[in-house]
């Protein structure tokens, strides 16, 4: 039989107040099943019904195919262990004595003998939670996290098939939470242990659970895999809190972040006008008075980053470094930039040739900085013909600061639009790929940063048909052409 737990049409009421309405779900063997819901949604009541702590009123719960009501307390304890949210601390008991209680259900007779099996199960459980060294200590002298692990060990000493957890990681620090959940997850895989756990933390639930049940006012909102359940509108409805869903950077599961309800920091008017641009031989620094949400391919601060400083640094022609990112960070730190708030790029181009374009239209304002060198210009469509990477100088760095709120889609489209405008500039300036003698589309080391103030006008899209896209295309084209011309003039290029 594959089904561990089956709950059918379960309802429960305390006096006049119904706290569970027709809850139905099944949990398979070896599954890690999470229950999510705000306070008062009936999570704990549901768990108490499963552990028989509350007597069932209406509905059906079957365990391994047998109705829950037909289990005696002892039979149930051989199958199901519970780790409740709050455990009264009992003074004076040692860790081992506490864990030994877990063997109660497996002992028989009036004065049962302590068997080798009992001893083994206890020792194993204590070791599993990493408290072997402390087994003779009084539990009242342990930290909250350690104590929770003692109670987990007792639950494990019961050698259950089903483990019920009510916010198991309460009172634990981050590392302890992860350790505990990692371990539980491992047991569900290795020992076919079934876990049903209440979670407070949506992200932890998303990381560890095979399936989730979303409970709201005693009703099941939805059941499914985290990627299906963790959905902005459902969470907003259930938790009544604004959340944003994102992808986990490593694990294929969604993460949510909560949006604080603090008043948006007073919109600064003309935030682009207050930009401080410092130009020198060594670097161009664009400093903003507030952080800009930035999507970039820069050396430092790649991906999404909130940044106040945008640094385009000049490096010598023969700059070569195994770990350019680390070297760039050191460079920024040495100049007292906050590395976490800085987007840093490099170029070998003479910084005096940079082009600066400020555009302000009716509903769009943006500021663009471009440095261009095309020594290693590449035609992307023919790049495969290149045998080796050209070591000549030349990079087109584009920084665009926009006053407005961009969606993720708008960020990506802004990037596309900027790239297309750049390619067109190269086309019009007739920049050739020296290897293939075809028109180049860029250089091999180009970099783009799209930064948005995330205040004021909202831009859902930034494609070439939108006002923002049009402004980006126009600015980037203009700046790139200007920078290219300056660059070529300096190099005495006579092609154009």
């Amino acid at each position, binding site marked *: 039989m594959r089904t561990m737990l089956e709950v059918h049409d379960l309802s429960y009421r305390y006096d006049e107040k119904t706290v569970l309405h027709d809850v139905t779900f099944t949990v398979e063997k070896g599954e890690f099943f999470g229950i999510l819901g705000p306070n008062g949604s009936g999570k704990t009541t549901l768990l108490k019904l499963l552990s028989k702590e509350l007597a069932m009123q209406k509905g059906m719960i079957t365990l391994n195919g047998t109705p829950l009501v037909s289990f*005696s307390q002892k039979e149930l304890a051989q199958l199901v*262990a519970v780790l*409740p949210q709050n*455990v009264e601390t009992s003074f*004076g008991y040692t860790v081992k004595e506490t864990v030994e*209680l877990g063997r109660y259900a497996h002992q028989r007779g009036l004065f049962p003998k302590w068997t080798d099996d009992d001893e083994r199960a206890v020792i194993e459980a204590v070791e599993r939670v990493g408290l072997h060294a402390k087994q003779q200590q009084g539990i009242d002298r342990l930290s909250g996290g350690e104590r929770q692990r003692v109670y987990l060990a007792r639950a494990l000493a019961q050698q259950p098939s089903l483990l019920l957890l009510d916010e198991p990681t309460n009172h634990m620090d981050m590392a302890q939470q992860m350790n505990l959940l990692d371990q539980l997850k491992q047991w569900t895989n290795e020992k076919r242990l079934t876990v049903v756990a209440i979670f407070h933390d949506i992200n932890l639930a998303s990381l560890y659970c095979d399936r989730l049940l979303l409970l709201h006012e005693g009703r099941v909102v939805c059941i499914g895999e985290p990627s299906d359940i963790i959905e902005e509108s459902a969470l907003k409805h259930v938790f009544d809190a604004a959340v944003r869903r994102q992808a986990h950077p490593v694990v294929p599961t969604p993460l949510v972040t909560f949006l604080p309800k603090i008043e948006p920091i007073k919109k600064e008017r003309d935030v682009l006008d207050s930009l401080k641009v410092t130009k020198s031989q060594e670097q161009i620094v664009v400093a903003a008075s507030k952080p800009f949400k930035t999507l970039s391919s820069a050396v430092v601060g790649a991906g999404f980053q909130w940044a106040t400083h945008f640094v385009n640094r000049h490096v010598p022609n023969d700059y070569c470094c195994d770990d350019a990112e680390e070297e760039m960070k050191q460079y920024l730190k040495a100049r007292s930039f906050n590395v976490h708030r800085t987007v840093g790029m490099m170029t070998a181009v003479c910084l005096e040739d940079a082009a600066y374009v400020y555009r302000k239209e009716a509903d769009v304002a943006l500021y663009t900085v471009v440095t261009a060198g095309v020594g290693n210009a590449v035609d992307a469509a023919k790049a495969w013909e290149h045998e080796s990477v050209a070591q000549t100088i030349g990079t087109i760095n584009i920084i665009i600061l926009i006053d407005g709120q961009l969606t993720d889609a708008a960020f990506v489209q802004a990037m596309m639009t900027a790239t297309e405008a750049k390619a067109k500039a190269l086309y019009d300036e007739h920049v050739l790929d020296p290897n293939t003698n075809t028109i180049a589309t860029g250089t091999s080391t180009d970099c783009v940063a799209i930064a948005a103030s995330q205040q004021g006008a909202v831009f859902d899209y930034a494609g070439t048909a939108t006002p923002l896209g049009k402004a980006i295309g126009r600015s980037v084209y203009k700046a790139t052409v200007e920078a290219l011309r300056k660059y070529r003039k300096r190099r005495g290029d006579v092609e154009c």
Partner: protein
Amino acid sequence: MLLGISIGSLSIPFSTIIDIFLSQWFGVSAPHPIPDNLVQIVMAIRLPRVVLAFFVGASLSLAGAAFQGLLKNPLADPYTLGVSSGASVGAVIVLFFHWQLPWIGTFTLPLVSIAFGLITLFLVLFFARAVDRRLSVETIILTGIIFSAFFSALISLMIALTGEELRQIIGWLMGSVAMRGWNYTLMIAPFFAVGGLLLLMNSRELNAFAFGEAIAAHIGVDVAKRKLIILTGASLLTGAAVAVSGAIGFVGLVVPHMIRLVIGPNHRLLLPLSLLYGGAFLVLADLAARTIISPRELPIGVITSLIGAPLFAYLFLKRTKRKT
């Protein structure tokens, strides 16, 4: 124990006592003859008194340990449930009305007393159950307090109405193990055996209850049933002890605490040790009661409190110091 038999208004050396035991129980004749009156004193007065003191002390502290563990209340003692008040009411009624039931004669008092104790237990449990079907600890304690208060008032009422029996009633209420003879000792024995066994069998359950009833249920304890068994066992012990010796305070409260301070709260050790030390404690207390102002006797309850309280305070202080 030997000490308890030996010392009295007439001191008897250990060797003589052992000789008496040997000759009385094993037919080994002593090397030199022992005066009959000494044999009489040892076998009919001192020994039963010491054994009775031991039973009473053991019963009270065992019951106290169980109540404290089950109710998770350090101030709980054998009298928490009101059982002793009930038993006292029974005894005082007997003294007040000069009852003498046929056949049992002088045993009217202890038997009525035990009967009242048991009736009280069932009343308390019945009432607590009517209030709260799950028999939660709070309900039990509250119910016990209500019944205790009511019975105490009854006793006070009878004392107020009484005349010449006053001294007798007060004397009984203060408790004593004096001049009871083997009959009393034999009477408490079966209750002691049954109640003690019930509690010792439930030491693991008591450990589980220490973590709360929910936890106890989670690890497989049939909470309602076990609670009832433990309460019954402890009440049997208390009722029987009160019936044969009156209300002797402090033993049930202090002895388990002292044991707990020394060996920790694990009931598998706590219960048997409370039994032994509680018995020994009362034997010594009784010894002190009859020797300090010999040949007059002090009420044993005074002694238990006088010895118990400072000892408890000392242990408590020592433990607190060690902890910090």
